[in-house]
């Protein structure tokens, strides 16, 4: 390939990488954690003071009692076939939510059960919004803005990310064979970082291509649809085109009886063997028809939702009405579109793919981190004649920013996760409080990095990350040793996994921090990673 083209793309790669790298770091680190959003939500949900769910045959009387006591639930309730700590009852409901794109979903959530005497028991659930915050950080590349403001910025970052992928491959092509299977450790640090950056980038390229394309769509789909309505279809045709998407509910008499949950299960297994119903959503359409949305899993197929597929059925007869998102029953168009969602969310192949995506996400975060390190190493000034070189100011700034933003987001996320078990006792377990906790830790880390310089902050903030992450299993350990205290454990394997994973990660952070400490002492002094280079912060500086 012509060297001028490679040189040009190298410039392009450097610029898009530097501008988007830190935002992408946060998006990928938080995104890796969202692979276990369900588990985190369960870990963080306080135990509800409610009797165990009744047997399936008693659910009908439970529903009847709920409707009698709360008439507003007649056309707005859910049946949960798999109660879990975040939804600990078989019958639940939420007040209808206005169609808005608020950052955090409605907190009001009610659960009903029957006590030992068969009397109705209703509790308000305090669902933790911590996992949602991590999802928001992921979607908005860590920006604390309204959805409408953050999404175009995220989209621009995603476009730069796509350009970085293409340009990165173009740069690598001429030396691909020579460079691919080698990691040159040694005096030349830049060489080592470059080898690591290249090998990660090339081997996770398919994952990154998927993420870039889906992220651009998630950011701009409103704008693209609006433009297509105007210039492709013509606005007058649009309602008719989408009407194909409305569920054709047959008209029933007002007093027609809806199927009971066990009848629904029976009808579903007739029509869709292999599909396991998990949640039944009984509602009413805008046209006034009674509707029933069944969410569930079929492990043989990919699904549209983060966890489940779904199907609209006739609540009276149980006939499947709209199978666009029903696993294995979609047309080719939906199947194709759903595969993009599944590839982004890692909702195929069960837990092993979730873990693979978790590590691919962390590897992605490291890819962007190493990109910044390369920029820094390329601009390093070497010492001459025993005189220590002072590194350029922009290099020192980017070094501090890279350390502060990356480690700040890691520490902030860990602290806000641990806080999920402590905030309810203070009555502060809301999304905005979790957000405030995150940003307080994050901004403090960034400030610290600028105050101390990249080298010292790199070591110190790594210890902060370790401590912050250690708070997660520590909190659960407190609950174990102090059962009457304010924090809790659910005692399920999946919530225990949250603690074990956090413990392992904290130990990794300690190892990295020790290595960083060693580098400060033993590494070359003509580097921003040497403490000697950091000018002591004095008022004059």
């Amino acid at each position: 390939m012509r060297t001028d083209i490679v040189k040009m793309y190298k410039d392009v790669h450097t610029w898009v990488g530097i501008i988007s790298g830190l935002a992408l770091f946060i998006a990928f680190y938080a995104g890796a954690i969202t692979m276990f959003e369900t588990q985190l939500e369960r870990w963080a949900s306080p135990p509800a003071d409610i009797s165990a769910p009744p047997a399936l045959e008693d659910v009908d009387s439970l529903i009847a009692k709920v409707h009698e006591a709360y008439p507003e639930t007649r056309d707005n309730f859910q049946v949960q076939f798999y109660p879990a700590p975040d939804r600990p009852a078989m019958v639940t409901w939420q007040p209808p939510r206005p169609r808005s794109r608020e950052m955090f979903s409605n907190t009001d959530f009610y659960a009903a059960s029957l006590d030992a005497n068969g009397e109705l028991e209703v509790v308000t659930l305090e669902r933790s919004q911590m996992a949602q915050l991590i999802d928001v950080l992921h979607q908005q590349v860590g920006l604390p803005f309204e959805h409408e403001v953050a999404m175009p910025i995220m989209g621009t970052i995603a476009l730069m990310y796509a350009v970085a992928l293409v340009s990165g491959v173009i740069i690598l092509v001429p030396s691909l064979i020579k460079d691919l299977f080698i990691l040159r450790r040694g005096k030349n640090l830049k060489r080592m970082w470059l080898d690591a950056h290249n090998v990660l980038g090339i081997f996770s390229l398919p994952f990154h291509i998927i993420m870039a394309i889906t992220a651009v769509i998630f950011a701009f789909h409103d704008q693209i649809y609006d433009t297509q309505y105007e210039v492709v279809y013509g606005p007058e045709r649009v309602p008719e085109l989408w009407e194909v998407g409305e569920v054709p509910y047959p008209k029933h008499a007002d007093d027609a009886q809806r199927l009971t949950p066990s009848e629904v299960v029976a009808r579903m297994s007739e029509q869709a063997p292999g599909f396991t119903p998990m949640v039944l959503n009984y509602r009413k359409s805008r046209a006034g028809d009674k509707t029933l949305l069944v969410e569930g899993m079929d492990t043989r197929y990919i699904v549209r939702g983060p966890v489940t597929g779904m199907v609209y059925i006739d609540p009276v007869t149980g006939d499947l009405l709209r199978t666009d998102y029903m696993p294995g029953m979609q047309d080719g168009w939906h199947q194709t579109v759903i595969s993009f969602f599944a590839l982004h969310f890692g909702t195929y192949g069960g837990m092993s793919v979730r873990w693979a995506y978790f590590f691919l996400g962390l590897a992605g975060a490291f890819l962007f981190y190493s990109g910044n390190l390369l920029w820094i190493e390329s601009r390093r000034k070497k010492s001459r004649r025993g005189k220590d070189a002072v590194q350029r100011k922009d290099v020192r700034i980017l070094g501090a920013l890279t350390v502060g933003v990356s480690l700040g987001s890691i520490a902030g996320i860990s602290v806000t996760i641990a806080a999920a078990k402590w905030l309810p006792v203070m009555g502060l377990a809301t999304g905005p409080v979790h957000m405030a906790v995150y940003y307080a830790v994050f901004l403090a880390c960034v400030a610290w990095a600028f105050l101390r310089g990249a080298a010292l902050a790199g070591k110190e903030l790594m210890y902060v990350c370790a401590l912050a992450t250690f708070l997660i299993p520590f909190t659960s350990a407190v609950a174990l040793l102090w059962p009457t205290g304010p924090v809790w454990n659910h005692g399920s394997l999946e919530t225990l996994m949250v603690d074990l994973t956090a413990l392992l990660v904290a130990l990794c952070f300690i190892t990295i921090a020790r290595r960083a400490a060693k580098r400060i002492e033993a590494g070359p002094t003509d580097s921003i990673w040497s403490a000697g280079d950091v000018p002591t912060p004095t008022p004059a500086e």
Partner: protein
Amino acid sequence: MSKQTLYTSKNWLGKTAAGVILGFGLAIALSGLFAWLGPMGLEGGSGKLQLTMWITAPIWITVISTCFLFKTGLRAWAWLGAANIIAFAGLYLARTMLG
């Protein structure tokens, strides 16, 4: 061989602007051709409506990543502009003849 002008990143602004703006236009126009002339035309239902939206992203990304291969910003605008005119003319024809 005649003397070649070298590629450079110095004139990135004109090229990038062409890639972002005309790349989006091209993506919309080509997705429109897919909507009208692709399999099942406008009868593909909501699934095709969604896929037609999705295919704009890879097209747009491809144009933005390759627009640097034009020698100058002016050339990028000229070539991508011409591609837009042809694609939109095709879309207009498809809409008037089939719509």
